[in-house]
Structures are given as structure tokens and as C-alpha cells.
């Protein structure tokens, strides 16, 4: 989200270049997906500025007041107080990324205060060698030199209750998830792994759950642009024998 509007970049980095496509009011979209039977909603503030934060709190409050479903909020949350503000606004889970990389102990502090189930560590990973995925921070602009699988394991040992894995290479391409890194991380940690970045077809969703061993799948563009409804996805997954909550 950018300036209180839902946006969708084609790949990371496009946001600053003004390449975002505005797809609408986040609360209206949230209501639409609530009606469609989405299992969870995720709000990311991609600007992560102080002004953005205030807007974000209002968006979360308005969404939570009308959608009685799980909400995850992330973007620019740097302290336990920031987390608390979002939880009180109606968020159920807090997603941290760059701030966890800068201060890994924030994961532990959040988990001790709110419980592990509340702390989601979001990892942006890019394939840098045939067998190596590196963690990037700051909206995928900054290389950390960290191995993605190792970071996921460390985040969980510090108290992360969920990992959202976003493949930088696949994000926004609609060419499918990175199944290999998703599976490696999912098999390396004992907490749920949510696959993000790359969903273009219904088949992509199924394969990242089956072959990629993801526990859940997150998508934005295909829903925002109306390519598929949540119901379309769920019906397809059921047809593939994947257990889902019926709409």
C-alpha cells in the first residue's frame, strides 16, 4: 500500500520509479475478499514512512471493523510498540522484514510480548547462485549476504511463528512461485511457510502447495485485477485434492 491506496508493483523497486499501478481503496478490496471467503488478509505498507504509518493504522482499523477475519500487517514496524499499535488497531499478526534483519532480537521481543503465533518474519530471497538464495532487505534493494534457509531457521529459533517467503525473482512476474526455495525453507522449519510472489495461474497456486510444500499461498495481483476470485482458487485447489475451507 502506498498513501492509503492499494498498489501493485511489477517487481520490487518499481515503486520509487513511479511504476505502481493503483488498484483501489484497501478497505473496499478487503470487504470484497472477505465476501469472497478469503482465509486471511495481508496489508503491507510499502512506503513505511511516519505518515504512511498513520494511514495504515486507519486502514487496519476500518478493515478490522468490518471484516471479521484474520489480518496481518507489515511494513516499517520497528519496535514492540509499533507492533502493539497495529494489534490494537485490529491486526492479528505482525509481519517484519528489514527491521528483523537489522535487529534480530526484535523477533524474540515480539514473541515474548505477544506470542510466537503473532510474529511473522517475511523474507525476500533472490537466487544468486545455482544452489544459493540470498536474503535482501529494504524492499529487496539491499543484499545482506545471508543465506535464506539459514535466516529462516534463525528467525524461527528466535520466536517467529510463521515465515512468509517472497521470491524476488518471481514477484510480480505471474510466472509461478520459486518452488525449490519454498520447499527447502518449508522443510527446514517447523512453522507454517506462506509462499508469496509469482502467482499467475491457478496451477501455480496448487504446485507451490504440493511441490513447494508451502502451508499457505498469498497472492495480490490476480485478485486485485479480477483475474480470479478467491472462490476460483479454492475450487481449483479442492479439485487437486488440497484441503481448503470451502467458500
Amino acid at each position: 500500500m502506498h498513501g492509503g491506496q492499494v498498489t501493485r508493483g511489477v517487481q520490487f523497486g518499481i515503486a520509487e520509479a513511479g511504476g505502481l499501478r493503483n488498484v483501489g481503496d484497501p478497505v473496499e478490496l478487503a470487504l470484497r475478499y472477505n465476501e469472497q471467503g478469503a482465509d486471511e488478509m495481508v496489508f503491507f505498507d510499502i512506503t513505511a514512512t511516519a505518515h504512511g504509518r498513520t494511514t495504515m493504522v486507519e486502514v487496519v482499523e476500518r478493515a478490522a471493523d468490518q471484516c471479521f477475519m484474520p489480518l496481518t500487517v507489515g511494513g516499517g514496524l520497528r519496535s514492540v510498540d509499533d507492533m502493539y499499535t497495529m494489534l490494537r488497531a485490529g491486526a492479528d499478526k505482525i509481519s517484519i522484514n528489514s527491521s528483523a534483519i537489522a535487529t534480530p532480537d526484535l523477533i524474540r521481543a515480539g514473541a515474548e510480548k505477544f506470542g510466537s503465533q503473532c510474529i511473522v518474519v517475511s523474507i525476500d530471497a533472490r537466487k544468486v547462485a545455482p544452489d544459493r538464495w540470498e536474503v535482501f532487505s529494504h524492499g529487496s534493494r539491499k543484499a545482506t549476504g545471508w543465506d535464506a534457509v539459514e535466516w529462516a531457521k534463525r528467525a524461527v529459533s528466535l520466536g517467529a511463528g510463521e515465515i512468509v517467503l517472497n521470491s524476488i525473482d518471481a514477484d510480480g512476474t505471474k510466472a509461478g512461485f520459486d518452488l525449490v526455495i519454498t520447499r527447502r525453507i518449508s522443510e527446514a522449519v517447523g512453522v507454517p511457510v506462506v509462499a508469496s510472489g509469482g502467482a499467475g495461474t491457478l496451477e501455480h497456486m496448487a504446485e507451490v502447495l504440493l511441490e513447494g510444500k508451502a502451508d499457505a499461498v498469498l497472492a495480490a495481483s490476480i485478485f486485485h485485477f479480477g483475474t480470479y476470485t478467491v472462490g476460483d482458487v479454492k475450487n481449483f485447489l479442492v479439485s487437486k485434492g488440497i484441503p481448503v475451507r470451502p467458500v
Partner: protein
Amino acid sequence: MPNYLARVIALIDYGSGNLRSVHKALLKVGAEVRVAQRPEEITGARAMVLPGVGAFDDCIQALGKQGLLEAARQFIQTGRPFLGICVGYQALFEKSEEFNSCAAGLGIFQGKVVRFPAEHGLKIPQIGWNQLEVVKPECPLFRGVPSGSYVYFVHSFFPQPADASIVATQTTYGETFASSVWRDNVFATQFHPEKSQKVGLQLLKNFVELAAG
């Protein structure tokens, strides 16, 4: 006396993260809600809701600090309707294994709060939708909520009631656990009705109607 006063539900605020969501969901189903931070604010309420998310010890300590632990215990003893949610459910038991917890719960129910065992190979916490098996269909909280309904869970721990007869619903995640309990007017759920869309709102509506008497 305006009729709505009969519906006043005290919603306990001890800093729990899900307070707002529970508040809004109760309003949605027609409740008159008073957010209570002090024992005296509970007086006169027809019913009480104890929300909760996060760590057991934090919850118990925060409640104790505000004098709400004892107030909740006394309220329950009056026989008025009580609903505990998530950690507000766990708090009804004697103790928890979480982070080597040493805090004592309310002890309304015997038993302790335990962690999902690792041996099932399932992801812990359980984060997501799971099904209810209603074992007490006569429980007024589950009126209109059939077995098989999906509700939302976010937890690593769950209570093991010593008295199996209080179990209202059970849910299976690797092992089968008490996803809600009921005795007299005390109801408590491990799942989050305020996050369980239509099913959750139905359950809260049932509670509010019960409170309205």
C-alpha cells in the same frame, strides 16, 4: 429502564491485542459493550468477555496488576455468563507450560495448558482455519453452528481439562484437543470467534442473547 442495559457486556481490557476486534464483533451482533479496565467497571454487567492473545504469563500478570484476576473469579462465581477467548480461555485453568510459566491461572477449571507435541510433524503454531466437532450440541453457544464448521485458530498451546465432561467442541490438529469448553454459564474457546467470519459472529450472537437473558 431502557432495555439495552440488560445487554451490557463487560469486555476486559488488560492490554490484549485483539480487544478491538472482539469489541467490534460484539457490537456487530447487537451487544452493548463496556470496556472495563478496573474491577469496579465490571460491577453490574450482565456478562463478561475475557479476550486474549499472546503469552499466558503476560496475560495473567496484566490481569493481576489491574485487580482483574480476582474480579473475574468473583464474577464467574456469581453465575453470570462468561466468555473466554484464546488466552482468555487458557487463563481459566491452573497453569501453563508456556516459556516455563510460573504464573497461576484462575483455576476455574482443573487442568493445565500444554503445547502441541512436536511428534506429529505438523507446523506449530497452528495458524489457520480448522473444523469443530460439536460434542455438546445442547451448548447454547453453538446454536446454529453445526459440526464441521470452520473457525480460526492461532495458537501453540491449548488447555487439557481434567474433567472431560466440560468439553463442548473438539478439534483435531495432529491430536484432538478441547477447542472449547462449557460448564454452567462459563464458555471458553481456543479459537477466535471475532475472526471466524459468519460462524464466529453466530457464536457471539448466541452469547449476547444468552447475556440478555
